[in-house]
């Protein structure tokens, strides 16, 4: 493989492009596949097969050939509402798990650059903040303030926009009240039940880092369940 291909891969990653790296195992020639753009040389013959592997988020050798395809897709976006202590641990875990984190908190003292270096922070109320974030069904929401004024609008947005994962911090009681408020606001039972609340898998832990671990574990598990 040529170093230029490795550099092109890194450039595409930093530009947040989605692509595949294809290698001819017979001579170790490589090329970058970008959806919708034609390939050159012998790779062009396999455009459809490469696209198929790319679209299914897989890596592998095209059947009956010596062409290897590795798919590069963007990390899953996780919006954390609440720049609280748990969030700092969540960010630490997420670093090595291919998640892109965005922190939303209108309270400037919480969501400061000092507390969250190298992380995209939006110092706005969720309604306004979500206008600045591109979201889709591959986006996840984690609400951690357990203040209805901040959490509820974010939850409503995530339900409406069909996020694949929605989790809300709070005890069983807090969550029951939260569900009632959402039902009163006109959401269906099914939609409200899809919220992971109390958030996280049952680890039994109590400290902020242990809670963060249980949340990130649930996120990874839901990612695979939903084949994202």
């Amino acid at each position, binding site marked *: *493989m*040529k*170093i230029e291909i*490795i*550099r092109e*891969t*890194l450039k595409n*990653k930093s530009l947040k492009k989605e692509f595949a790296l294809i*290698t001819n*195992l017979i*001579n*170790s020639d490589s090329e970058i596949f970008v959806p919708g753009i034609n390939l050159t040389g012998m790779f062009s013959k396999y455009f459809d097969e490469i696209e198929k592997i790319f679209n299914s*988020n*897989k*890596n*592998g*050798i095209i059947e009956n050939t010596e062409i*290897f395809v*590795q*798919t*590069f*897709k963007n*990390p899953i976006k996780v919006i954390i509402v609440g720049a609280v202590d748990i969030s700092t641990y969540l960010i630490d875990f997420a*670093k*090595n*798990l*291919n998640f892109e984190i965005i922190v939303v908190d209108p309270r400037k003292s919480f969501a400061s650059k000092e507390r969250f270096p190298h992380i995209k922070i939006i110092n706005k109320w969720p309604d306004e903040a979500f206008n600045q974030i591109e979201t889709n069904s591959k986006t996840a929401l984690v609400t951690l303030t357990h203040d209805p004024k901040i959490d509820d609008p974010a939850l409503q947005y995530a339900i409406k926009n069909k996020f694949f994962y929605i989790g809300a911090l709070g005890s069983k009681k807090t969550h029951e009240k939260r569900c009632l408020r959402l039902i009163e606001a006109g959401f269906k039972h099914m939609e409200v039940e899809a919220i992971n609340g109390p958030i996280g898998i049952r680890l039994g832990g109590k400290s902020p880092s242990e809670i963060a671990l249980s949340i990130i574990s649930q996120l990874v598990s839901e990612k695979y369940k939903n084949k994202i």
Partner: protein
Amino acid sequence: MSYFTEKKIFEEADNWIQNNKKVSLATVIQTWGSSPLGVGSRMIVDEDGNFLGSVSGGCVEAKVVEECISLIKNKKDYKKIDFKVSNENAWEIGLACGGDISIYIEEIK
């Protein structure tokens, strides 16, 4: 699908090359049965045997490093290595998990 670690490995490969090292890239291209790491897992190895990344749970790395060094020494471009649990060498380099994997090694030029 690629993982976060692939980016880290490619960044480091670029660094090593810029520091005039000879670097080879090892990639898991096929697996059968239960294997520790998925297809697309990668590892880089320099001519001194320093490596970053992983192609198994530690079962075959030593052998892959050895192969990468000899690939560079013998000025070969690439090689495919198959690891099977049924290999005679199974006890030395075999996969405890009982799976088979194919690893492709190539020099980064």
